């Protein structure tokens, strides 16, 4: 079977296994390191023993199960979610610079959070970076972000149904994003300094806020968005060539576009709600996937993008935990690792 496959030049699978196995191995190693690092360092061997059910020290077991494992899962879900959303949007808009931010979904979530923080009466007393958030009520924050992202999504879907050209939808998304950002800017400008600091802390992004209680919701959002996209890989392949092209080979363009926008909004909105506006990852991971697989088949690109996103997110989270006391903000770290990595990949493989 493989022989006939490769002889025709249509073999998605031959380009799938090596990057998939490599990325999975990298993600596994990074996951172990991610559990090991933090304010309390745990030796790698002890991490393994703890995961196997026999922690060498009681408090390590507690730390791993209560703090490190939820944080690890959050990091994995965020990386996979943003990378998938980025791939969907880049292919649908045929624009390598499209990402979850370009639909204004992140900005919508920011509006929700900003409105909650600046208009809401309950002001947190603590002013440490991430520490101030739980006092606001973490779930309230998630709801506010989801509502904001959802509102923007409804506007974008409404626009998308009335507009023929998909590029126009992208431009509208960017404009709606600017609109949302300017509202946030005004809120920040007139906000009390303490609330401004709280809001800024949220914008730095964090994988550490989600507890076991919220994990099922977060996982549900990411998995359903990913599954929705996986059902539409044919449409994604065709959209990458062109929308009119897709229409001539039997794809219902408008319906597929709505489903894919919905999937990317659930993915990006979910991550923004739980982790804050994580930038860069959604744009960078799909490029890594394309460069690694040299494929245009989304049945390949979607899982490889998700795994690349997971690796990016884990690296950023490890680096943010390395100083030990007080975590570094995730957002700047992501761009700091990601940008040089993508640039080097592009430089190594110049041919399209």
């Amino acid at each position, binding site marked *: 079977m493989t022989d*006939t496959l490769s*002889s*025709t*030049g*249509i073999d998605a699978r031959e380009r799938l296994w090596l990057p998939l196995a490599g990325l999975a191995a990298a993600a596994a190693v990074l996951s172990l390191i991610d559990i090991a690092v933090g304010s309390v360092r745990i030796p790698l061997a002890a991490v393994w023993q703890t995961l196997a059910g026999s922690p060498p020290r009681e408090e390590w077991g507690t730390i791993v199960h209560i703090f490190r494992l939820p944080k690890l899962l959050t990091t994995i879900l965020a990386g996979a979610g943003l990378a998938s959303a980025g791939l969907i949007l880049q292919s649908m808009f*045929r624009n390598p610079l499209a990402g979850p931010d370009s639909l204004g979904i992140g900005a919508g979530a920011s509006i929700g959070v900003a409105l909650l923080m600046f208009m809401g009466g309950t002001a947190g007393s603590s002013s440490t970076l991430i520490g101030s958030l739980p006092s606001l009520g973490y779930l309230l924050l998630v709801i506010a972000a989801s509502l904001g992202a959802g509102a923007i999504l409804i506007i974008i879907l409404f626009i998308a149904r009335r507009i023929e050209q998909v590029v126009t939808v992208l431009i509208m998304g960017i404009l709606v994003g600017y609109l949302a950002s300017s509202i946030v800017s005004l809120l920040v400008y007139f906000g009390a300094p303490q609330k401004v600091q709280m809001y800024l802390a949220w914008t730095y992004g964090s994988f550490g806020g989600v507890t076991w209680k919220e994990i099922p919701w977060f996982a549900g959002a990411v998995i359903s968005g990913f599954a929705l996209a996986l*059902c539409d*890989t*044919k449409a994604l*392949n*065709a959209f*990458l*060539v*062109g929308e*009119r*092209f897709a*229409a*001539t*080979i*039997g*794809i*219902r363009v408008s319906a597929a576009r709505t489903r894919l926008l919905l999937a990317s909004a659930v993915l990006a909105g979910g991550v923004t709600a739980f982790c804050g506006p994580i930038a860069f990852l959604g744009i960078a991971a799909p490029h890594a996937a*394309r460069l690694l*697989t*040299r*494929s*245009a*088949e989304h*049945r390949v690109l979607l899982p490889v993008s998700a795994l690349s996103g997971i690796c990016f997110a884990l690296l950023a989270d490890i680096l943010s935990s390395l100083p030990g006391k007080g975590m570094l903000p995730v957002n700047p770290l992501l761009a700091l690792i990601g940008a040089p990595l993508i640039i080097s990949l592009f430089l190594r493989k110049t*041919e*399209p």
Partner: protein
Amino acid sequence: MTPTQNQSPRHVPGIPDIAPANADSSARMRPGTAGLPAAHSSAGAVFPASSPQQSAVPAIAAIGLSIGWKQRGAPAILSSGINLRAQQGHLTALVGPNGAGKSTLLRTLAGLQPPLAGSISLAGRDMAHIEVEERANLLACVFNERIESGYLTVAEFVAFGRYPYTNARNHLSAEDRRQIADALALVGMSGFARRSFASLSDGERQKVQIARAVAQNTPILMLDEPTAFLDAPSRIEIFDLAQRLARQSHKAVILCTHEIELALRSADELWILDRTHHFAAGAPFVIARSGAIDRAFNLPGVYFDSQSGTFRSRGIH
């Protein structure tokens, strides 16, 4: 792939040679198109009830068709009252000056743009009642647009032609793979299967795009200016290919082109949209003699010489 390999007498240049070739199939000479006024009008006279073609169901037909756009709900009609039909086994060339509405007509016939009035039928069925998925089994088109191919190989690109037939996971059966290989062989691009689509020349890309449409295995094939950006030998190659797809693969091939001279030589039927968006149809030599081409392009310094089948300058000769 050179013109001489094709045994058809239509490849001898010039209109007089073509006339007998078309006369062979005298059934194609419709009384309505013979006269000058009829060839210029788009009235129902083009398809008289007595025509022997009436018995066969046309692959594609339009009655009272108006094409154009809707602007804020109000229709902006480009051309109206278009009656046309195309038969399987025939090559139809749609010609006309820039801006006459050739691409709009083609897009409307392909179902990508709604007609403002009138009806289109595919294989005798009203297109308004044909679903997108089913339409892809009846009609394949190659539009002249920028293709973003990324890392696609030639074979992967041709595999898009099998999309209407594959499941959601896009599993290619042995039959799908055979059709892809056959389509590539038909256009003479078998050796390119594993090449990257992005690395192809314009002519090679056009052939691969046609192979993609062939792999779709439809009775109707539409090509939107397939010879644009191509050098002279490649243009002839594409017309040869279009002719073979009509005669040998028994498709209704409709191509829109600026190559009037090539179209007159190889098409079985000419559709012409003029500067005033009037539509006329007929056998190429009838259209050529009627003066419709001259009127369609209507350029003061240029005239169409129906003897040689070429455009000539009125200037210093």
